[in-house]
């Protein structure tokens, strides 16, 4: 099949632009071609402007050069995406692409049941899949109550706690359970940022009433991470009214946040106090036993039977949150599948090295000199001096060898840093240490000790 005009243009541009320019600005572009026209689409305004200013002329020239059709090529450049073109969006939603006037979920003119509510619930987040422990049992019990009796006594339900502890999971579990009990329930899950985005688009498109109707006609509204309403007054105002309307109609509202209502900064007082009207439940970081249970359950979902000792090993090291526990077990399983090795404690230790190591210490020549001088109880100045007695020369050679191993400095640079020595002296020092490490146990041990001190 002949290459499309756009593909030819891409191939050409790839050879003319730097790799970074091409990967950052050209690869994200999408083109829709007809016989005499080409529409180039950029994912956002920023990319559009950047490309317009720097590359569009070049792109036009190349396209015209490759155009074999008799008529001139019409080239347009606008914001848009491949998915919006293909209509591949999985769910109907208000388009991110503001200029495309497709039917969106707010469009039905009549309020109420005609509106096509999109739940956005994740089917995997159920009560069954939620691992219960001391740290989350109150929140779980409250959630179960709300799921049984939505719009009842616990309204609103406010779940708060640190990041990655399972707030969103519980919220979805309630939603899934409400729908399981009553498939006709209109349950909508939304992240607060998206609520804000939808409202802004509603305002821009003169569709704010549709927006209001949409959110005020649900049976349960699940709104995640409300701390992101901070400082957004217009959104808070809108949410306040939605909130009141839902509560008045005995519809359920469930919110999550990273902290207790009164402690959320940038939020209006009337909202804070209202958020606390119903039931407020905290989730704490999991204690050791819960972490172990979570790891074993997660592994089982990947059809891996995790030994208790391995689960304990991981849980002891990753205490802060469930998401990181999940990341760790994901990595262990991936490495086990990749290498075909069994998951033991030793194997896990090795597989999690990348996750547990926080940061490579920045090792500098100065740092090495100081550490070596301390170790041998001499002064740094001795290392840099002209003295060649064994008590100074040996540590100096060790320090040079460590500098070569632990830094990327060139041998001449290392030589310079050791009192202006020649690079051949450095090379000699490194060879000498290598020899001695094999023949002299003490040097070997010194070297290993210093290496450990410098890298951990």
């Amino acid at each position, binding site marked *: 099949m002949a290459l499309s005009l756009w593909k030819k243009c891409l191939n050409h541009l790839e*050879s003319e632009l730097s*790799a970074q320019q091409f990967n950052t600005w050209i690869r994200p572009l999408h083109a829709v071609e007809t016989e005499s026209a080409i529409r180039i689409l950029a994912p956002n305004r920023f990319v559009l402007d950047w490309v317009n200013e720097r590359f569009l002329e070049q792109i036009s020239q190349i396209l015209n050069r490759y155009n074999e059709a008799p008529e001139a090529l019409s080239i347009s450049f606008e914001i848009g995406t491949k998915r919006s073109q293909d209509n591949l969006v999985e769910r109907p939603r208000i388009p991110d692409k503001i200029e495309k006037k497709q039917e969106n979920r707010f469009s039905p003119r009549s309020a109420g049941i005609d509106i096509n509510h999109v739940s956005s619930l994740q089917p995997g987040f159920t009560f069954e899949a939620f691992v219960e422990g001391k740290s989350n049992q109150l929140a779980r019990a409250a959630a179960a109550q709300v799921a049984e009796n939505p719009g009842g006594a616990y309204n609103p339900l406010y779940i708060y706690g640190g990041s990655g502890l399972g707030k969103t999971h519980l919220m979805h579990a309630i939603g899934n359970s409400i729908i399981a009990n009553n498939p006709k329930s209109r349950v909508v899950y939304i992240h607060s940022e998206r609520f804000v985005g939808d409202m802004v688009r509603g305002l821009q498109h003169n569709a704010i009433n549709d927006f209001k109707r949409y959110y005020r006609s649900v049976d349960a509204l699940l709104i995640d991470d409300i701390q992101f309403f901070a400082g957004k007054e217009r959104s808070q105002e809108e949410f306040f009214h939605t909130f009141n309307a839902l509560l008045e109609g005995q519809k359920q509202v469930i919110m999550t946040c990273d902290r207790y209502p009164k402690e959320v900064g940038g939020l209006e007082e009337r909202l804070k106090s209202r958020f606390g009207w119903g039931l407020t439940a905290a989730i704490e970081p999991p204690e050791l036993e819960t972490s172990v249970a979570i790891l074993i359950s997660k592994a089982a979902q990947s059809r891996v039977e995790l030994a208790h000792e391995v689960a304990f090993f991981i849980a002891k090291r990753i205490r802060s949150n469930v998401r990181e526990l999940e990341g760790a077990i994901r990595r262990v399983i991936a490495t086990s599948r*990749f290498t075909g090795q069994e998951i033991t404690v030793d194997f896990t230790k090795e597989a999690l090295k990348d*996750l547990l190591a926080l940061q490579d210490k920045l090792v500098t020549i100065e740092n090495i000199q100081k550490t070596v001088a301390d170790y041998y109880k001499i002064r740094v100045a001795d290392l840099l001096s002209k003295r060649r007695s064994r008590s100074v020369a040996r540590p100096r050679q060790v320090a040079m060898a460590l500098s070569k191993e632990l830094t990327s400095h060139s*041998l001449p640079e290392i030589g310079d840093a050791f009192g202006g020595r020649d690079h051949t002296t450095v090379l000699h020092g490194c060879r000498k240490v290598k020899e001695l490490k094999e023949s002299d146990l003490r040097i070997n041990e010194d070297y290993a000790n210093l290496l450990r001190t410098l890298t951990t």
Partner: protein
Amino acid sequence: MTKQLPLGIRLRDHATFDNFFIADNRQLVVTLQQAAAFEGGDTAALYIWGGAGSGKSHLLQAACHRATVADEFAGYLPLRDHKMFTPELLEGMESLALVCLDDIEAIAGQREWEEAIFHLYNRMQRNGTQLIVAANAAPQGVALSLADLVTRLGWGLVFQLNELNDEQKLLALQARAEAIGMQMNNDVARYLFSRARRDMHSLFSLLEALDHATLVAQRRLTIPFLKAFLARDQVTSD
């Protein structure tokens, strides 16, 4: 005598998985390759970290290249250049199939950027867009202030990109020389290695400069040529 100018247009050597020197990073590279080819079904975010010159940017750009081969759309966002951009750069990026964020540590502590990346992450999750992030440290070691972002970065697969040892660097240098059509025998490589900075950025840019210099001078790369070149380089950089 006038010097011969090298050809104006040289075929540029774009970053791909084929021209990456894998060494001890096989699992990482294979995982990235699969993610960028949308194979394997798992769209968990990938996070790779390592020191300067370990090859993070190369791998991220190779992933973008691979996505294009799979007929998908990808974008590479170098956050070290964030001062030239605004967070609006991230809008709508979830419509691509693959987004690569390089040097995320560069925006650490900048609330606006951190939040924009957090929201992008959530939108990508909803859309099933593959995310690959590169940084100079593990998620907990990057000084990000938004805990929600840190825990999400640690949720996917985290890999450290192991740096090459000296022997591997030597081989990588020679492989690169061969790829750009340069002859570099062992003696020359070792000579260069014992005198130049040994991080891969310095070595590769030196190689590029040498490639240019040998073309201009119409000479082969020999130790005397290298010696003269390095001496001249020293003078210019001083």
